[in-house]
């Protein structure tokens, strides 16, 4: 593949991939590792890749899941760390505090979703990937992705309603 193509692919996707990897690993350095490995795999791959972006996402996902498995951590996306980290850096006015409180609840609700559902939600809502791409990344069928997203949103809504009843 031509040199420029790789450059553009890196440029277009690195931010999203880093975010995605970080979601699993919660560590900047590890996330960079994951993305770097994915890109290296990509340049070494000698067959034609039809959807490089989805391919890269999948490579990152596989890397992250493998890593988590090796570390014997529970292989799912956790928002727990985010909550702790974002606590520190902003002294916000009251309204924002309420918003933050709100955000915490949503975070917790997302956290309580099934791992696969959580992944679909992240890929769709955070990364805006299409069902087709999500299907490629997660090795599922397109209709299954739609179903999972629907289920996840339903669950999220009922959990949120329950949380906000108080």
């Amino acid at each position, binding site marked *: 593949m031509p*040199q420029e193509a*790789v450059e553009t692919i*890196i440029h277009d996707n*690195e*931010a999203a991939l*880093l*975010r995605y990897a*970080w*979601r699993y690993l919660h560590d*900047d350095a590890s*996330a*960079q590792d994951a*993305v*770097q490995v994915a*890109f*290296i795999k990509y*340049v*070494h791959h*000698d067959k034609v890749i039809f959807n490089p972006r989805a391919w890269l996402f999948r490579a990152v996902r596989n890397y992250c899941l493998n890593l988590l498995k090796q570390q014997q951590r*529970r292989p799912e996306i956790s*928002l727990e760390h*985010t909550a702790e980290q*974002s606590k520190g850096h902003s002294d916000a006015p009251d309204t924002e505090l309420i918003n933050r409180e*709100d*955000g915490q609840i*949503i*975070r*917790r609700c*997302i956290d*309580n979703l099934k791992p696969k559902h959580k992944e679909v*939600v*992240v890929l*769709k*809502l*955070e990364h805006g990937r*299409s*069902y087709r791409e999500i299907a490629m990344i997660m090795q599922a069928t397109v209709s299954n992705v*739609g179903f999972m*997203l*629907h289920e996840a*949103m*339903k669950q*999220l*809504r009922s*959990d*949120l309603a*329950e949380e906000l009843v*108080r």
Partner: protein
Amino acid sequence: MNHKKTLRLITDYFAGELSAPVSEQLMAHLEACETCRKEFEEFDELWSRTGEVLAEDSTIEQLSDERKDFIATAKALAAKTKKKSPTVTRRIIEYGAVAAILLIFAGMLLPALNSARSNGVMRSARNEAEYKRMETTMVDIADDKMTEGADSGGEAKEESTARALKIYRDGLAKQSGVRSRNRRTEFAETPIVLSGTVAKKTVRKQVKTKWAAGFEAADRDDTFGGDSNQFSARRSAPTLKQTDERLFVARRSAPTLGKDAKNEVLPMELKESLASGEARHKYALSKRKKSKANELQLAAQKPQSSSLRHPGAKSPQKIIMEKRLNQSSKSLVKADAVESNRFMGKIVVDRAEKKGLLRETESYADKEKSNKKRQRRIPVQRKVFKLNLKLWNITTVQNLRVLMQQRGYPLTARVSINRHDNTLTFYDTSANLMKAATLFSKLQAAEKELKDFRNGIPMLKTKLRPVSTFSIDTDTASYVQAKRMIMNGQRPDPMKIREEEFVNYFDYHYRSPKKTVFGVYLEAAPAPFRSGKVLLRIGVQGKKLGPNSGTVSSYTILFDGSGSMAAGNRLELAFQTMQLLFNRLSVNDRVSLIVCNEQPGLLFVGRRGGSKASLFQQLKRIKPAGAADFSAGLSLAYRTAMRNYLPGGINKVVIISDGIVKLPKAQLSEVMNEIDRSRRRGISNIVIGVGGDGDDQLLEKLAAAGDGSYVFIDRSKDAVELFNQQFDARFREIARDVKIQVEFNAAAVPEYRQIGYRNRQLSKADFRNDKINAGEVGSGQSVTALYEMKLNRELPAKMMLAIVRLRYKPIDSDEVIEEEFVITSNEVDRSFATATPGFKLATFVAEFAESLRYPETPGIASGSGVAAKLSPLFHRNFSNDGKVAELLMLTRKVK
């Protein structure tokens, strides 16, 4: 468009996956339907909020430059190593080269094919080489003639081949006449050796002949198939030669053919012609008896003459010739094959005999019938012995072997052990089975004796079973329940009495260990109620953890919301328990509540411990009714606990129930498996019982399976105590799978028995098997076990009485620790009076428990008998202990 479908469409709409016409339809529907519109708006909000929240997490946006450089280098490297797509000219060259190679091969194959055609059969390269070698080394002239014959065509060719054959054979006879005769003698004699009893010495030799037979059989496949051509005629020459030079061939062919031939079943043709072969063999034998030399000559000349009779014969005649040739040589071979086959059969029997494989022997019996000569069959029988395997420490066959060896019955049979049914299945000869039966009847008699309480509680013979192993039990429910019954003027059900739970309810004030996880305190003194017996107390004291600093905890409460919970003060107690638990929560702790009735449901999930008022508020929503589907409830509880798992924190499922629940036996094992899985992941449980008329054993089982403890709450005081004094002990574990093994010295302690721990018994081998689930110990918790021993009189000083081993897994590491303690004869107190107060108390509690467990058993003191001795102890040492005061009252109530 129905509501459900709309919802799905709304998701797809926000996902941007809806085609234009469908989204138009959706919009139209939304305008018409208000509920769906509301739904849509809510969804919009949720979607955007979730997106925002997810976007809030900040992370680095770019790969660092050095990583980018790294990727660039990797790419450059990949580009270098990557294969360029081949150009057209290159392709042509490649194809050309392949074609050329193919042509060369074809050219090489062509002459070979031609010669094969002239020979009729394709020979393998190896055969050819071998054949060539034989030809050159053995007879040059014959070789020349044969090649001649092979090269020329038509009848003349056949003729010359036959001639060549003759010359070849003559040459053979000339060159190795004497030697081959000797060989033949040897060979002819072997079947006789075989038909007699088989001596092990001959094994190797016979296997060799078997190989030879296999070789012959393989040859015969070619020659017997009716292939009437020159090559097979030529091949029959080596066959002949083999007859003469059998052992030579056998040796040569053994490495290659032996492997296949060894296990090979005889070919069909051979089997069919078996009878005739044998007949010939017999004939040969009878001849041999008359005149050995004559017979040998006959055997040597017969094939020759038959081949000479038809020197230029055409194909059909040639077949006859070949058959004769082969048969004459085969008659011996076949007979040998039969014998060696029989011999192989014998090996099978021997093996069967060794392993006791019944089936093989039986199937072999059928084969044998056809051979007419019957081998002696080994009668293997099956016998099942029922035995309490745990009691005799039988876990593996090795255990059994040792046990039998020690009693003078070496284990020879095949045995299968079923630990669930407590059965041993033996496969052995009847004589050996009789021996085993005498041993096991002794053990069974000993077992029966243990169940006989007419002469007091029976003791175990140390010689029979020197090692006692058990898992620690920190439950106390049995005592609390018995207390409730006695206070109501009833006698508790003996089956519900677990002595260890009585003993462990009380505080014995062991010293808390400073460095280690556990302190072990051994004490022995004469028993107060039975003269001549000595009591051994093993006190295990767990270390006390410091104040709870920063450990988060996640509780999942499974509340039994069945109708029975509304009875009496159960609901009140349960609510109080939950409120006490909520009060102990810190801000970062999490709690979930599941109400288990006919359809178990989540009341709330993963709530933080901060807002206690709202948690209390939730309790008001509980309305007990109907039956409780406990299997669904438990599985939901454990799933919820898994979801709210806090790594490094306390993860507990709190089960509050009166034990009146629906849990069919079929589902029990499934639920237990789930509990066990969660236990391995670090989710333990605590079972809090209320009421007291439910399935007490089920609740105990749940606690035992889930690394938890079973406590019973009868009054609000109990609940308060559980969450104030005992909270650390019940909720903060220090060690898991705590097991104790006591090995008695048979020279000093001829008999012993353990008090309590009946359903916590382990097999000896389980002690060091770290997969076996055993009891847990919480912070500052102590466990006491008691043994009653009979000591030999006049023991020498410092004689070892018993070794106590403690094995456990500390909660904060994966390693397993085993410690060993010894008690010697001079550590035994002179009299009961000089024993420590704690020892005395434990003795009295145990005696009281046993008086309830074994009513009207001679030798066991009555309640009032215990009361008489307990009273002075209470006044002297335990006057401040409310628990002991209660016990005193109870003992006085029981007659």
